[in-house]
C-alpha cells in the first residue's frame, strides 16, 4: 500500500474541478433513482443497466446513422422514458405492496437480465464514439479539463434545473410530489396516482437517458458499464437522502470530488474505497442521509 502523496496545487485544482464536473453527471443519474424512490420507496437496482442501455442507444445512433451524441440526447431520453414506463407497468406495479425481498430482487434480476442481454446481443467488447463534435481539452482557471465533460456537466445541471422546476412549479409535478408525500391522500384529491407512479418511472429513467447520451461521448460503452455508475448512484442517493432531489445534486458533487481526491491523495486504486467509506461513515452517523426526511 502506498503512502499519502503530496500533490501540487495545480493538480489539486484540476482534480477538484474534474470531480465537480463528473459529480454533476452522478447527480443526474442519482436524481432519477431518487425520484422513483421518493414516489414509491422502491430502489431500482437495474438503474445502472438503464444507463448502459441509454449509452448503447447513443452509440448505435452514432454507428448506424452517424448521429452525434448531442443529437441523441432526446432519443436516448425518450427510449429510456419508454423503458421506465414498461418496467413499471410490467414489473413494479405487481410488487408495490410486496415484501422487501421481492422489491429488491425484482429489479436486481432485471438488471442482471439486461446486462446479459446486452452481452448476448452486442458482445462484451468495449465500444467508443470515435469522433464526436465536442472533443479535446479546454482551459479554465489555469487548468485543462475535457470539453465533453464540461458540456456534459453543464447539460446535466440544466436538466437538473428543469427537473426541479417541473416538480415544484408545474401542476403535473406538484401532483407527483403530492403522490410522493401521501399516495392515499393524493388519490382522494383526485390525482390519478397510478398515472403518477408510471410517469415517475418514465421521468426517472429519462434522466438516466440524458446522462447516458453525454456519458457515451467520452466514456467506453460495454455491457458492464452500468455496474460502477449504479453503485455510485446508490451511494449518491443514500448520501443525499432517498427521495430528496436537491440532496442528490449536493451528494453527487461531493462524491465526484471525493473520488478524484481519493485517487490523488491516497492512490488511484483506492478512489472508490474513499467514496464508499465516506458513504458508510455518513449513513452511520445520519442514517437518513444529508437531506433525507425519514
Amino acid at each position, binding site marked *: *500500500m502506498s503512502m499519502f502523496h503530496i500533490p501540487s496545487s495545480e493538480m489539486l485544482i484540476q482534480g477538484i474541478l474534474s470531480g465537480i464536473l463528473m459529480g454533476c453527471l452522478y447527480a443526474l443519474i442519482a436524481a432519477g433513482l431518487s425520484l422513483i*424512490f421518493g414516489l414509491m*420507496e422502491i*430502489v431500482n437496482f437495474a438503474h445502472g443497466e438503464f444507463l448502459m442501455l441509454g449509452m448503447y442507444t447513443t452509440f448505435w445512433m452514432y454507428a448506424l446513422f452517424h448521429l452525434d451524441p448531442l443529437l441523441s440526447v432526446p432519443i436516448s431520453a425518450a427510449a429510456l422514458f419508454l423503458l421506465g414506463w414498461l418496467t413499471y407497468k410490467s*414489473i413494479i406495479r*405487481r*410488487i408495490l405492496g*410486496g*415484501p*422487501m*425481498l*421481492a*422489491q*429488491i*430482487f*425484482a*429489479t*436486481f*434480476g*432485471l*438488471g*442482471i*437480465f*439486461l*446486462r*446479459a*442481454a446486452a*452481452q*448476448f446481443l452486442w*458482445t*462484451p467488447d468495449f465500444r467508443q464514439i470515435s469522433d464526436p463534435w465536442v472533443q479535446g481539452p479546454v482551459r479554465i482557471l489555469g487548468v485543462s479539463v475535457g470539453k465533453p465533460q464540461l458540456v456534459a456537466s453543464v447539460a446535466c445541471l440544466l436538466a437538473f434545473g428543469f427537473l426541479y422546476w417541473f416538480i415544484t412549479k408545474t401542476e403535473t409535478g406538484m401532483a407527483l410530489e403530492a403522490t410522493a408525500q401521501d399516495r392515499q391522500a393524493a388519490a382522494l384529491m383526485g390525482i390519478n396516482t397510478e398515472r403518477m407512479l408510471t410517469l415517475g418511472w418514465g421521468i426517472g429513467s429519462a434522466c438516466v437517458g440524458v446522462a447516458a447520451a453525454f456519458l457515451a461521448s467520452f466514456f467506453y460503452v460495454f*455491457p458492464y458499464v452500468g*455496474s460502477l455508475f449504479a*453503485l455510485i448512484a*446508490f*451511494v449518491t442517493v*443514500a448520501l443525499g437522502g*432517498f427521495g430528496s432531489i436537491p440532496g442528490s445534486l449536493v451528494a453527487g458533487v461531493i462524491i465526484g470530488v471525493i473520488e478524484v481526491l481519493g485517487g490523488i491523495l491516497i*492512490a488511484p*486504486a*483506492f478512489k*472508490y*474505497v474513499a467514496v*464508499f*467509506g465516506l*458513504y*458508510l461513515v455518513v*449513513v*452511520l452517523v445520519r*442514517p437518513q442521509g444529508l437531506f433525507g426526511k425519514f
Partner: protein
Amino acid sequence: MVALGILLLAAVVFPWVFRLPYHRDLVIRIFLYAMLAQAWNILAGYCGQISLGHAVFFGTGAYTSTVLQVTWGVNPWLGLPAGIATAVALSLVIGYPCFRLRGHYFAIATIAVGEIVQTLAINWEFIGGARGLTIPFQKDSLLAFQFATSKYPYYYIMLALLAICMLVSWRIERTRLGYYFRAIREDPEAAQSVGISVTKYKLVAMAISAGVVAAGGTFYAQYVLYLDPDSVLPLSLSILVCLLAVVGGVGTLWGPLVGAALLIPLSEFTRIQFGGTGRAVDLLIYGALMTIVAVFQPAGLVGMFRRRLGHWGR
C-alpha cells in the same frame, strides 16, 4: 423422514454410481453453493436482513486458512475454525453499525462493504494482492485436507459440511432463535416491544451466517488450491448466493438446496452449449428467473410446491 433418508443415501452413493470426475465436480459445486445460499438464507430469509455482500465472508474463510497455511504452515483443519472465527468477528464489526440501517439502506451498505473489502484485498500484497495465492501441494491425505489421486474425500467433506449447515438451519427454524428471527423480519418494532433485543439477534443471525459461509470458503480454497480476489470476493458471487436462495425459496429449509440443484447445472449446461462465458446465457436465464420469481412467487419454488401439495416440506 423416509424421503430424507433416501435423499441422504442417494447423496452418499452418488459418486460410486456416476464415476466421471465431471459429475462429481458438478455435485460438489452444487453442495458448496447450496451451503452458501443456506447460510445467506439464515440472515436474509429468516431474519429479513438482505445482505448483498456475503462474498466478504467467503473470502475471509478462504483467505484466513490459506494465508495461515502458506505463511506459517498452519494445518487447514485448524485454518477452518480460524477462518470461521475471523469471519464471525468481521461480521460483528460490519453488522453492528450497519444494522442501524433498514431495508434498502442495509442492502446498499453491504454492497459498499463488499466493494471496499475486494479493493483492499486486491491491493494488499501480504495476502497475494491481485495475483492471488497458490496453495502448494504437500501430501495426499485427510490430515492435510488435500487430495490428488482420489477426489472422493472432497465430495464427502463437502457433503458433511452441507449436512451440518442444513442441521443448523433446521435447528434454528424450530427453536426460539428461529421465532425471534422471524419476528424481527416481520416487524422489528413489534419484536422489540415484546422484549426481543433486535440488534443482538440480528448480530446472532449475521454471525451464524458468516461462520457457515467462511467454512465454505476454506473448503473452496482447499478444493481449488488457488484463490484471488476475483474468485472469492466478487459482487457476482454475493449475488449468485442470493439468487439460488431466492429462486429456490427464501426463508425455507429446502429452498437454497433446490435453487442450487437447479441453477448450478443450468449454468454448466449453457456454458457447454454456448461455449465460455462470452454469451452470458446463464445470466440471461438467471436474471429473468430472479425477476419472475420475485414478482409472481416470492416464496420461491419450494413455496410454490408447498402451496400445491399442502403439507410437503413442513
